[in-house]
């Protein structure tokens, strides 16, 4: 048909591509009959080329609109007349009954009916899709040209909408029965319900129906949120699930224990995730998870945790796995795990308070006893204090045990969750610093003391490390670090002066750990104490060399070991015995001449080295080794021999005993005479005499009358008949070790602590005001608290007092007329 060459005459071109107008009606008739064949699955004889060509020509001839409309009408009729009927035929009485929740049909019957219905629907849907795909192939030119140019949805999309309207939204023949779509929802929900109850259902079948709902849209706009699955099914599903799980939670809280509840909940969540994957749609997963989490966890977590078998029970019985479940569940619904945290904290404080109370109970029993002991029952008092010390150590061990327990729970069950650790720390600090239990600082220091003196004996380095670490762990919780420092210094002081420490290295390790934990300021004084000790050793040996150099060695020479202590560094006042410090300061002990000589000698030696320093002798703190010879007197066994003993006594003891050296054997000294000649404070004298004249194993003096108490009228004489089992005899003096303070001591310590606190507070306030110049009262208090937090937590009333004192001394002034109380710094 190409215009041949050489044609001379040129005519205007004819109309039409191939010269003929198309006959739309005829052409459509051909196409329509072919479509019918396709729908009846009889397409194998149809020629694609022919159908395509017809459609192509119609569109090219601008009849696309007509073709499009015809196809749509054709499909509408096909669906309405052919397909709908077959679906409605599946609506059996069983199925309809179930929608109205009428009894009389068994679950099995309903399930079968539901499956049949879904199968029919699925079949119709799949047929429709296949046929429409073929139609769309044939009508490709229309889609590409007509639909694109006129912005029409493709014929395939249009036909999907038709399926929705003509099939899913259609109402069944029976008057009051709901649309197919509603029925489908209901059937699916019922099947899911069956599966939740343990039945096996046809997941793939439901999934096919879900695919259909996902492929169709509500309305014209094809967005995610407009899918029929979302608009019609999902909401129903979530609502019915919510009801289901709400009821289930109710039932389980009543009938099972918390552990079972947790396991069940976890399984339900897995099941729902699985169901979304295999039966419904992945897009539903987060939503249904939320429903389950809300109903089974969020709304119930409080009840669950508070159950008899809840968190408290799990903690007490070390149900780590169940605690871990609770943690997971709580974490799902609450990032902060508020409920669990609350329960855990509560339990920590409860258990900690129990530990505290046990310690208080123990100390109260004993302080009642020690009231009597103050009247002179030394041995009883000692025993009580020892027991009390044991109670203190037990407190420390108990707290550490509690800490270990919760650490394990935290690690194993809570996945080392950071906020929970913070909460645990807070709770531990709460009970350790409870206002009802003021002794934690002292107890912790005692714990270290005990270990330094005995505990670490024979332990390996690692074990010692562990002990030190424990102490540090507890120390972290202590709020009033200043109080701890006070006790630690006191205890350390005794250890150093009495050489009770097992290892100087370990002492230093402890100090360096504290330095890391609490900073330089805290350990400065402690380190100074060690330094004093070192210097003292040098002094002692230096003095010894100095003396040796002076002249002929005197066999009777008294050797001097000396500790020179810096008075600000050492808590010397706490080293003296209780109650008579004032007296001790006023009175200077009178030393025997031999001792006095040595004392002078050292003072001279020291004065040469460090001019301008005054040495104060603390007789109450020293000790002496005395070689004693007991004359030949008849013994109990009748023998007659001289006995030599080496006596280790306190300095006071030595002073007392030396008085008897010059006394004829049958003479005596009265209490008053001894006191007058030695100037030893009364209470120290009583205690020393108790050791020397009452305690049966070290009765070097005889007392008249023989009684347990020392009274001022007693007379003392040398006990020539003394008999000791060992060569070396240690004469103990009551309260020489580190023990829990009595209540009176305690009050004093607190008072001293408050005094030094007052100083710290003033310093802090001045520091702050110097920098800020003007500040309101509120802000000043807040900043002061903040600055002092690493050391202690001061009372607000104390801060107020210090501020007033500073105003009086004109460091600060009140700002007149300020709306809130404010202060100004005065340079």
């Amino acid at each position, binding site marked *: *048909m*190409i*215009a041949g*060459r*050489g*044609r001379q005459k*040129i*005519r*205007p*071109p004819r*109309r*039409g*591509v*191939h010269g003929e107008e198309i006959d739309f009606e005829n052409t459509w008739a051909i196409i329509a009959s072919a479509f019918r064949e396709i729908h009846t699955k009889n*397409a*194998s*004889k*149809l*020629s*694609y*080329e*022919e159908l*395509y*060509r017809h459609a*192509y020509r119609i*569109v*090219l001839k601008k009849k696309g609109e007509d073709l499009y409309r015809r196809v749509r009408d054709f499909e509408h009729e096909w669906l309405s007349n052919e397909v709908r009927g077959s679906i409605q035929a599946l609506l059996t009485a069983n199925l309809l009954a179930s929608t109205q929740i009428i009894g009389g049909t068994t679950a099995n019957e309903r399930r079968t009916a539901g499956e049949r219905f879904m199968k029919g629907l699925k079949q119709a849907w799949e047929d429709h899709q296949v046929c429409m795909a*073929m139609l769309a*192939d*044939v009508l*490709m*030119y229309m889609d*590409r*040209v007509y639909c*694109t*140019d006129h912005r029409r949805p493709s014929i395939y999309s249009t036909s999907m909408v038709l399926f929705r309207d003509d099939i899913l939204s259609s109402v069944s023949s029976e008057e009051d029965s709901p649309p197919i779509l509603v029925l489908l929802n209901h059937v699916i929900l019922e099947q899911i319900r069956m599966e939740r109850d343990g039945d096996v259902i046809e997941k793939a079948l439901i999934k096919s129906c879900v695919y259909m709902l996902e492929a169709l849209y509500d309305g014209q706009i094809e967005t995610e949120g407009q899918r029929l699955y979302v608009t019609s099914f999902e909401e129903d599903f979530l609502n019915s699930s919510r009801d289901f799980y709400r009821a289930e939670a109710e039932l389980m809280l009543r009938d099972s224990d918390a552990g079972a509840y947790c396991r069940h909940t976890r399984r339900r969540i897995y099941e729902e995730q699985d169901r979304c994957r295999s039966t419904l749609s992945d897009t539903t997963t987060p939503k249904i998870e939320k429903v389950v989490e809300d109903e089974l966890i969020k709304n119930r977590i409080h009840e669950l945790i508070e159950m008899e078998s809840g968190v408290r029970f799990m903690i007490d019985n070390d149900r780590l796995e169940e605690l871990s479940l609770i943690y997971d569940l709580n974490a799902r619904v609450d990032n902060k795990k508020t409920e669990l945290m609350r329960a855990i904290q509560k339990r920590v404080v409860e258990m900690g308070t129990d530990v505290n109370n046990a310690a208080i109970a123990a100390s109260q029993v004993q302080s009642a006893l020690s009231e009597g002991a103050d009247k002179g029952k030394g041995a009883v008092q000692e025993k009580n204090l020892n027991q009390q010390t044991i109670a203190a150590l037990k407190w420390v061990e108990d707290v550490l045990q509690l800490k270990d327990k919760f650490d394990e729970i935290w690690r194993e069950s809570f996945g080392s969750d950071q906020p929970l650790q913070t909460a645990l720390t807070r709770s531990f600090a709460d009970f350790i610093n409870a206002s009802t239990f003021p002794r934690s600082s002292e107890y912790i220091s005692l714990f270290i003391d005990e270990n330094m003196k005995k505990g670490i004996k024979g332990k390996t380095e690692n074990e010692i490390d562990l002990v030190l670490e424990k102490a540090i762990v507890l120390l972290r919780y202590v709020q009033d670090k200043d109080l701890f420092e006070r006790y630690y210094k006191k205890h350390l002081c005794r250890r150093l002066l009495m050489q009770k420490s097992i290892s100087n290295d370990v002492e230093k390790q402890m100090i360096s750990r504290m330095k890391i934990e609490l900073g330089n300021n805290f350990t400065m004084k402690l380190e100074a104490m060690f330094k004093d000790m070192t210097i003292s050793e040098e002094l002692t040996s230096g003095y010894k060399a100095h003396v040796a150099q002076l002249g002929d060695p005197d066999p009777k020479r008294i050797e001097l070991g000396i500790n020179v202590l810096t008075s600000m560094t050492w808590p010397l006042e706490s080293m003296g015995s209780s109650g008579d410090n004032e007296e001790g300061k006023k009175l200077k002990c009178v030393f025997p001449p031999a001792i006095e000589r040595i004392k002078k000698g050292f003072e001279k030696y020291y004065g040469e080295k460090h001019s301008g320093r005054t040495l104060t002798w603390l007789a109450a703190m020293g000790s002496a080794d005395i070689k004693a010879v007991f004359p030949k007197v008849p013994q109990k066994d009748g023998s007659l021999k001289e006995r030599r003993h080496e006596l280790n006594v306190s300095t006071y003891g030595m002073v007392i005993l030396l008085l008897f050296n010059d006394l004829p054997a049958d003479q005596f000294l009265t209490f008053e005479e001894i006191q007058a000649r030695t100037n030893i404070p009364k209470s120290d004298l009583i205690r020393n005499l108790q050791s020397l004249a009452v305690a049966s194993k070290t009765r070097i003096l005889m007392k008249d009358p023989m009684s347990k108490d020392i009274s001022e009228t007693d007379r003392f004489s040398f006990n020539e008949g003394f008999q000791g089992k060992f060569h070396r005899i240690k004469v103990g003096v009551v309260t020489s070790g580190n023990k829990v303070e009595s209540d009176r001591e305690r009050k004093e310590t607190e008072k001293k602590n408050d005094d030094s606190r007052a100083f710290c507070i003033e310093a802090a306030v001045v520091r702050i005001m110097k920098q800020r110049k003007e500040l309101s009262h509120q802000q000043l208090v807040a900043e002061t608290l903040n600055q002092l937090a690493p050391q202690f937590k001061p009372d607000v009333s104390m801060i107020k007092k210090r501020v007033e004192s500073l105003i009086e001394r004109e460091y600060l002034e009140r700002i007149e007329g300020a709306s809130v109380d404010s202060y100004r710094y005065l340079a």
Partner: protein
Amino acid sequence: MAQDQAFGQFMASIQYLFASGAYSDLTILCDTDKHAVHKAIICPRSEFFEKAVNFGKEAEEGTIHLVEDEPEIVKLMLQYFYEADYVCSGEELDKEAKESPAPVGTMFAKGKKGRKGRPLAAGQPSQRSQNGDCLIIHAKIYAIAEKYFVAGLKELAMEKFKAACTSSWDDAAFPVAVNIVYQTTPESDLGLRGVVLDTITSRLSLIGKPEIQVLLAEGNGLALGVLLKKVASG
């Protein structure tokens, strides 16, 4: 160089497939012509063939009967499938198609080859030349490419058509080609229609031709197009 060689061999073997019909799995019938072709070559380049080979009768018989297309044009389309080009040169075309495949180099040379049309003064009676015939063939190729969604062929045909227009606008075949363009493309397709409008507006003397006037008088949008084009170009 080895690359060029390899490419040459590749093209040669593809052309051999068409010429010999070896490994053919599809037959295309057109009038009396029977082409043994390959789905693997054709279907990826044309959605029409892709759908057709899987549909009803065509799938069953392995044959596609192009009932209404011109054998000449179908042949050129198939040539394009196998050679990435088609050649419009009258009788030679037939001859060449029957010969064993030409070496690639020659083929491309031929593709570019186009005899310069004789310059014709406007107003002189138009002559139909071989070049003019090609104008018609390009328009028809364009149409078949549109119909069967042959990838790239429309663009190729348009390029050739454009080139042919510059040389043969005064040829008697031009109005015939214009008519074909307006009959075989939808309004929205501005490809060849654009070329036609450009040609006419830049050579307004064409309007003096009665054949063109007939076309302008038709309600196919040509007249409006020319007018709009003229206004737009000032």
